[in-house]
C-alpha cells in the first residue's frame, strides 16, 4: 500500500544542461536521424552493432542554417528531467521499484528548447489513488507532474506521468 501522506510532496529544483552530444545519443537510441538533433548525420560514431544507420545526406550545418539556428532538443528528451522522482515515489510514497509500470505520458510544450540551454525543473507527486481491477481486485496509481522552465524563469514545458503499481 502506498503512503498517501506523500501526496503533494515536491522535490527541490534541479537543473539539466541540454547538451548537443546528449541530444545526439538520445536521437541515436531512438534511431531518429533528424538533422535537427544530430549534426553530422553522415558520420555517426555510436552505431548499433546490429544495424547500420541509413546513409543520409542533409549537408553540413543543416541545423545551423535552419530557422532554429542550431541543434534543438527532441520533445521527449524531457525523460532526462527525472532527478528527485524516484526519491518521491520510493522514499516518500513507499513504492517498491520492481512494481512500477508507466501507464501514461502527457507532455505539453510551450517552445522549442535549443542545445546549450539549461533547463530547471521540479517534480511533484500529485496524487495516489486506487481503481477497481477485474483482474487484481484493485490497482494503485500514482501521478507525477514535472514543470520545466528556462534560465529566464519562463516555462518551456511540463509533463505528467501516470504510473501503475503492479500488485
Amino acid at each position, binding site marked *: 500500500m502506498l503512503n498517501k501522506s506523500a501526496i503533494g510532496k515536491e522535490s527541490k529544483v534541479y537543473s539539466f544542461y541540454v547538451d548537443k552530444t*546528449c541530444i545526439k*545519443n*538520445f536521437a*541515436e*537510441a*531512438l*534511431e*531518429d536521424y*533528424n*538533422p*535537427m538533433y544530430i549534426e553530422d548525420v553522415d558520420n555517426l560514431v*555510436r552505431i*548499433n*552493432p*546490429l*544495424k547500420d544507420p541509413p546513409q*543520409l*545526406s*542533409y*549537408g553540413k550545418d*543543416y541545423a545551423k542554417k535552419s530557422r*532554429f539556428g542550431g541543434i*534543438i532538443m*527532441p*520533445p*521527449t*528528451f524531457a*525523460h*532526462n528531467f*527525472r532527478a528527485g522522482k524516484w526519491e518521491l515515489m520510493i522514499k516518500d510514497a513507499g513504492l517498491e*521499484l*520492481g*512494481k*512500477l509500470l*508507466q*501507464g*501514461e*505520458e*502527457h*507532455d*505539453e*510544450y510551450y517552445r*522549442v528548447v535549443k542545445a546549450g540551454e539549461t533547463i530547471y525543473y521540479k517534480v511533484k507527486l500529485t496524487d495516489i489513488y486506487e481503481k477497481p481491477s477485474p483482474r487484481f481486485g484493485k490497482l494503485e496509481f500514482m501521478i507525477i507532474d514535472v514543470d520545466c522552465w528556462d534560465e529566464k524563469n519562463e516555462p518551456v514545458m511540463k509533463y505528467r506521468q501516470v504510473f501503475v503499481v*503492479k500488485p
Partner: protein
Amino acid sequence: MMKLKEVFFEDIKEGFEVSLTKGPITRTQIVQYAGASGDFNLMHHDERMAIGQYGEESVFAHGMVSFGFVAQMLTDNFGVGTIRKNMARFSWQVRPGDILTFTGKVVKKYSEGKLKLIDVETQGKNQYDHPTLGGKATLALPSRK
C-alpha cells in the same frame, strides 16, 4: 541534398494519415535508451531481475521509447517544433524482437487565436497486430497566409 519536410496548415486535410515502422527492438537499443535518458530501471535492461524478481517474461522497453517513436512519426511528417501537446497510454509491453507500427490520423483541423492546429490520434501496434499504445497529439502548423 535531402531536406526535412515542410508542411503547411493549408496542405493538411482531416483524415490525413501518417505512419512509422520501428524495430526490431533490441536489448542494445534499450540499453542505449537507458543511457540516453538516465532511466536505469532494472526491468528494462537486467534480464535476471526482470524475470527472477519482477515476474516479467523478459526485459521490456521503456514506455517512453514508444513515446519517442510517436514523436518521431509526428516530426518526420509535420516538421520539427510543431508539437504542442502529446499524450499516450501504454497498453502493452514492448519486448526485444518486437516490430512496432505507429499510425496517426488527423481528426480535427482548427484555429485557436493566431495558432493553426491539428489534432492527431496516434496508435502503436506490435507484429502480432496487438495495440501497444494509444494517444493523441496537438500540433501547431505554419500557415501560408
